């Protein structure tokens, strides 16, 4: 019964309020208990929402608007979060989930700090649940109930898209707990090595799913939209990229705080901003200021409320930051030519890259306010964002072995000459043999340079190859993430620089030549699925002795009155042969079918590279092996619990 879910959500709201109260007063056990209760209650609430979708209970307004009896079970379930209200319910569930995750995993020995963090997370849960219940209520009934539902946007009926939103939410909302930890640290006035050690795992716990979520979205765009590309610098994509970039900056700066106690204020600021940008993304996507497949319900009130929430939580945290940051202790001394200096460069560029994406995304909106209609698209980002990031990545392999404090720079000229010559030769070969544009040739060399750098650093750390396996998981995490970045860049620049695209019109039996493949249209047949009709073309592809059958189709979903493209992709070592079916036309009495055919070289490197980055992030989460070596820099402050400043009400 949906009313049970409705009531449970109210109870979860009450539990979150109590959690906030106990947490902010320093009572960790009670805050943790309240978080756990809220999770159980909200779990029940969400379960009832899913049940309404599975049972196609169209007396629930949300189900009637977004589901259909003929939809496969998987998409009935995924349909729960394939709309604004349901996705907000998932958001609330994840916020509370991170409270419980934090209550279990946070073991710093500083009870008050942990309690306050749980209290702030409770406040975020309170805000989210209030927004859910009072502005996006998924539990409302419809009277009279319709006999059939309106169906889920067919574009979203896809396996990758079923798990894309939960992954993104784990990322966005994961940063809420990082935010809570930063605010609690600022309240305590202690953003130090202990704080960084406790927080770093939570940053990764948000960054890894965010990475996976963005990659799933990109992969979906690649095979579902039929445009041959995977990243379009669409405002919605940018909204997810900004917290990712800030999260990546934070991952690096928190290492400095953890190892050296430096960058404390900057790390705290990034931790606050990463969540603010997640909220900004939610605002941009959901308020309807951007139109996209994600703008489920365009409602100015919801937008204003999200913006108010962003300003309230973000403003409070930034105020706290401005108040506390000057009193934070600085860490060990360092010069510009040091590991700290290198990581500061990393943070500077990632922050500027974030601002660039922000400017490019918001500029058309701001221009509209002044009455101008303008567009900022891929060419802008390719000319600003890409060179900035490229410059940063060129430097990475050079500085990653630098020491903390002061680097002793003794270049190995012989190796530099060999590597430089090889990379130069790569660029020349790419330019003149493979006829790539300059940007792609440079990117290819950059990717190889990153792979080389990642390999060299891991061998340097091991000193002897036999020690490679006994290196800490974090070192391997770093290696995989940087190597993944290299593979990603190689895939991205080759795909962008050397992809081939043609639109052809074929009658049955006709052939066309594309990128060395001969495509023959065998037939176009009609088909039928549980909730769609289709036209499916059968293309026989032949290249030398290689043969393949491509079956691109077009589906029509009567319930949603909407067509979708189902592309056909033939993978080979060189890349993807990709076909999308267009419309039918009759020319001189002959029926012609149009196809858009692409050859996308090495595109899998893009997705594999990102997967490797996520894997690296996962490895970096693994705890250090305990070994009795002395840390060179003593951790400041007591590791034992500090005296309680307020009375515990346990």
């Amino acid at each position, binding site marked *: 019964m949906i009313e049970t879910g409705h009531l449970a959500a109210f109870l979860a709201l009450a539990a979150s309020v109590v959690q906030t109260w106990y947490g902010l007063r320093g009572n960790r056990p009670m805050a943790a208990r309240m978080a756990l209760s809220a999770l159980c209650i909200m779990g029940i609430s969400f379960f009832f929402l899913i049940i309404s979708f599975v049972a196609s209970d169209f007396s629930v307004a949300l189900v009637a608007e977004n589901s259909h009896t003929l939809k496969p079970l998987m998409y009935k379930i995924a349909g729960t979060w394939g709309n604004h209200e349901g996705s907000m319910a998932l958001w609330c569930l994840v916020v509370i989930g991170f409270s419980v995750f934090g209550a279990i995993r946070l073991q710093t020995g500083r009870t008050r700090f942990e309690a306050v963090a749980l209290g702030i997370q409770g406040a975020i849960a309170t805000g989210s649940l209030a927004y859910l219940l009072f502005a996006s209520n998924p539990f409302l009934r419809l009277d009279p109930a319709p006999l059939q539902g309106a169906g889920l946007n067919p574009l979203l009926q896809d396996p990758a898209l079923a798990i894309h939103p939960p992954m993104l939410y784990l990322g966005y909302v994961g940063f809420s707990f990082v935010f809570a930890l930063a605010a609690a640290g600022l309240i305590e006035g202690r953003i130090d090595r202990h704080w960084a050690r406790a927080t770093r795992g939570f940053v990764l716990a948000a960054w890894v799913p965010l990475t996976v979520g963005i990659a799933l979205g990109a992969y979906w765009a690649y095979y579902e939209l039929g*445009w*041959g590309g995977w990243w*379009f610098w*669409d405002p919605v994509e940018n909204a997810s990229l900004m917290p990712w970039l800030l999260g990546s900056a934070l991952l690096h700066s928190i290492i400095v705080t953890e*190892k050296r106690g430096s960058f404390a204020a900057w790390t705290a600021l990034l931790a606050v901003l990463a969540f603010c940008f997640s909220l900004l993304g939610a605002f941009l996507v959901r308020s309807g200021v951007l*139109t996209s497949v994600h703008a489920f319900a365009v409602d100015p009130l919801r937008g204003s409320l999200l913006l108010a929430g962003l300003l309230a939580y973000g403003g409070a945290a930034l105020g706290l930051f401005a108040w506390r940051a000057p009193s934070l202790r600085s860490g060990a*001394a*360092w010069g*510009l030519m040091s*590991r700290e*200096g290198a990581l500061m460069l990393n943070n*500077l*560029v990632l*922050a*500027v*890259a974030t*601002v*660039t994406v922000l*400017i490019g995304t918001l*500029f058309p909106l701001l*221009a509209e306010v002044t009455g*101008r209609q*303008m*567009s*900022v*698209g*891929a060419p*802008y980002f390719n000319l*600003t964002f890409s060179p900035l990031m490229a410059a940063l990545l060129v430097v990475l392999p050079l500085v*990653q*072995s630098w*020491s*903390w*404090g*002061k*680097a*002793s720079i003794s270049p190995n000229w012989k190796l530099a000459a060999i590597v430089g010559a090889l990379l130069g030769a790569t660029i020349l070969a790419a330019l003149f043999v493979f006829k790539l544009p300059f940007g792609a040739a440079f990117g290819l060399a950059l990717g190889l340079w990153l792979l080389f750098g990642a390999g060299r650093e891991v061998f340097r*750390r091991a000193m002897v190859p036999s020690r490679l396996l006994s290196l*800490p998981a974090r070192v391997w995490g770093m290696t995989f993430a940087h190597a993944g970045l290299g593979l990603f860049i190689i895939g991205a620049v080759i795909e962008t620089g050397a992809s081939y695209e*043609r*639109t052809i019109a074929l009658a049955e039996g006709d052939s066309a030549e594309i990128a060395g493949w001969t495509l023959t249209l065998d037939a176009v047949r*009609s088909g*039928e699925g549980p909730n769609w*009709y289709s036209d499916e073309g059968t293309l026989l592809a032949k290249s030398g002795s290689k043969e393949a059958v491509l079956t691109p189709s077009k589906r*029509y979903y*009567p319930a949603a009155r909407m*067509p979708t493209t189902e592309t056909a992709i033939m993978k080979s070592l060189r890349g993807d042969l990709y076909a999308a079916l*267009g*419309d*039918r036309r009759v020319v001189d009495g002959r029926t012609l079918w149009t*196809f858009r055919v692409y050859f996308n070289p090495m595109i899998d490197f893009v997705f594999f590279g990102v997967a490797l980055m996520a894997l690296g992030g996962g490895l970096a989460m693994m705890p*250090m092996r*305990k*070994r*009795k*070596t002395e*840390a060179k820099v*003593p*951790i400041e402050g007591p*590791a034992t619990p500090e005296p309680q400043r307020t009375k515990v009400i346990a």
Partner: protein
Amino acid sequence: MKELFLSLLSFALAVEEPLVDTAAEARAQKLMQEIRCVACENEPISQSAAEIAGTMRVKVREMVSEGASDAEVRAWFESRYGEFVLFRPPARGVSGLVLWGLPFGILLIGASGIYLARRQRSGSGEVEAVSAETFDHDNGTAS
């Protein structure tokens, strides 16, 4: 019934002939990625399946084959459809300066700020070098 539904599905994919000159075609392709389809949500004409996008592509190829420069093609489309049509906004006026200059401006300000602040501070006190791998087998806490 099914036929009727499918015939409604006519999102037109225009069949256009690429230019014979491969360099000119490459230039035209690049321009098509910069020009926004006026009938679609957020797509360049290179991707769009809308009919108007096809007409716009034909125009780009026509101008390129007649020897128009990239700037001339952009200017023609801007005068015809307005600034909105350019995914690569022109770098002119105050807004152009802000849009194109701000990223690099912030980078310069940030870098010089850090440099000046560090140069002042690193003059005082000894700096001790600690290699990165010191922490590879760090036991976690100081206790």
